């Protein structure tokens, strides 16, 4: 049985390696100073999808992402690893979305894609760490969900057998297709880019990524290439393209509002500084024992 698989992937700022210039003096995030990367757990999700594709000949894997035009890079990264296609949801109306409005947008796109057997995404994205989008997409599509998956063991007879992580243990569940699966970071890492696929797809772009007026600075004119190789033109969709309701998208469709954002400043304490000498260490131990702090 061939499977139609959609992988949800997000381009995120790399919050794991935040340098000194990542925060502005005003305490806001300096996005420009953080490299944009493929959300790590979405790569784990992609690997699960690619494995299913190998087990089920004739299956297809498509990357669905939402973001500004430069998020087309996420689709290319997926194509380089073995995905077949991709869709970029990009529209100013999508901007400012919380998890609910994001899920709405993704769900409308998945409906437009149609006849999907599995939707697989990372458990959560490292810029928000909410883990909400997967279950909310499932709810909006009326599909079952399996979160925190570590391994999609098999898909047969219209059912997926999935091993998942739970607090303090593990579980194996069986869910009928179609199903939404979110994949945990403890799952198998994603395969690297394939050199042949990189060569094939390196000029694959969404129309909005292409320079309006090609020049040395803006980028060369590749219109001839795009005319002869249709697979180099990635699908980009606006709110209207997916028949979305603008009221449910972006900031307008977001029930949560950010009241305030603060830079973290910890209250500095008056601390006693000691050396590593025997006398200092012993004095500290004695003080803690005398005060019954340890004992």
């Amino acid at each position: 049985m061939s499977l139609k698989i959609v992988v949800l992937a997000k381009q995120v700022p790399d919050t794991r390696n935040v340098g000194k210039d990542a925060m502005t003096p005003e305490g806001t995030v300096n996005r420009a100073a953080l490299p944009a990367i493929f959300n790590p757990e979405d790569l784990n999700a992609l690997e699960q999808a690619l494995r299913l594709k190998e087990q089920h000949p004739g299956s297809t894997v498509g990357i669905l992402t939402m973001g500004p035009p430069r998020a087309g890079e996420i689709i290319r990264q997926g194509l380089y690893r073995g995905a077949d296609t991709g869709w970029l949801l990009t529209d100013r109306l999508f901007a400012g979305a919380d998890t609910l409005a994001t899920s709405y947008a993704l769900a409308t796109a998945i409906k437009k894609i149609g006849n999907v057997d599995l939707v697989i995404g990372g458990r959560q994205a490292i810029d928000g760490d909410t883990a909400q989008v997967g279950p909310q997409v499932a709810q909006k599509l009326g599909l079952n969900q399996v979160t925190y998956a570590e391994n999609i063991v098999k898909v047969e007879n219209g059912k997926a057998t999935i091993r998942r992580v739970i607090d303090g243990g593990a579980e194996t569940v069986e869910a009928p297709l179609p199903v939404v699966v979110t994949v945990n970071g403890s799952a198998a890492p994603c395969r690297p880019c394939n050199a042949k696929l990189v060569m094939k797809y390196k000029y694959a772009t969404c129309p909005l990524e292409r320079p309006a007026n090609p020049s040395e600075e803006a980028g060369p004119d590749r219109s001839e290439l795009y005319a002869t190789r249709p697979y180099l033109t990635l699908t980009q969709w606006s709110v209207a393209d997916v028949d979305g309701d603008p009221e449910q998208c972006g900031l307008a469709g977001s029930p949560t509002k950010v009241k305030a954002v603060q830079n973290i400043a910890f209250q500095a304490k008056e601390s006693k500084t000691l050396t590593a000498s025997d006398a200092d260490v012993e004095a500290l131990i004695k003080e803690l024992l005398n005060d019954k702090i340890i004992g």
Partner: protein
Amino acid sequence: MDNVFVYVEIEGTQVQEVSQELLTKGRKLANELGVALHAVVAGTDIRGKVEDQILPYGVDKLFVFDGKGLFPYTSAPHTDILVNLFKEEKPQICLMGATVIGRDLGPRVSSSLTSGLTADCTQLEIGSYEDKKAGKTYENLLYQIRPAFGGNIVATIVNPDHRPQMATVRSGVMQKAVYEGTCAKEVVYPEVSKYVSPEAFVVKVLDHHVEKAKHNLKGAPIVIAGGYGMGSKENFDMLFDLAKVLHGEVGGSRAAVDAGWLDHDRQIGQTGVTVHPKVYIACGISGQIQHIAGMQDSGIIISVNNDPDAPINKIADYVIIGTVEEVVPKLIKYYKQNTK
């Protein structure tokens, strides 16, 4: 209407500590708002076995859903219970643990009810909110305060127009306490089939396996934590020796876990365990914000670091400038010498 609800999580018939912590917090919020605290629990053969683990935390009314297929947890039946119960009860606030279950259930329920949900809150407060664009002021909203952007900022989130205001909180962030005041402690046992559709049971749990925690890091009065500055697995193992003599537990920063020196379940910080020990000894930990978020409420903080400018030193009560190889054995030696 307008009450505070806590979804109570169970493993078999054991109520999870995180739920008791949230009941304690929920009681405080309910008192501040002048409303009741309600709790909801769902499982199989739990009637008569879970009530005493829930009511003492200040519950006015407990809804016990007891039926086949409600344990082990699966998403759809528990979602049906909360969604249909909330349609009747119309709570203003719903809290649940930021556990695997809470983070699976919360978003599904919030999406069904089109209400806002904030994950992994570290503080919950009541306050007002002014929507300047709409020229409208809201009173008594739930401030859902959480770290964002990998812990580099703290955001206060509100849900002005949608109910319930939903939030998840990690285990250990709030502290549980049996409620001293009076509350109604009513228990009801609704008919499960009136809330859950038969189609909700299509996902089958073939195997469910939970191990007892190997350590009590969360509740330990003394925590010894190591970071990347420990340098090697061998050096890191010295911390287990120190913990043994001090009767403490060992934890570590994400860097130490990533280096493979420590099990993942011992990671302290925003994405790990939150601890409140009497004494916290940080060895070779620089003090990234995401780590400090998980230990800043410790009683006495001792930092062992050869870098006098390590950020963690700012919040430490004692800073020992030196290498861990030198200092840790001395801590063991002088503790033993002085406790004979």
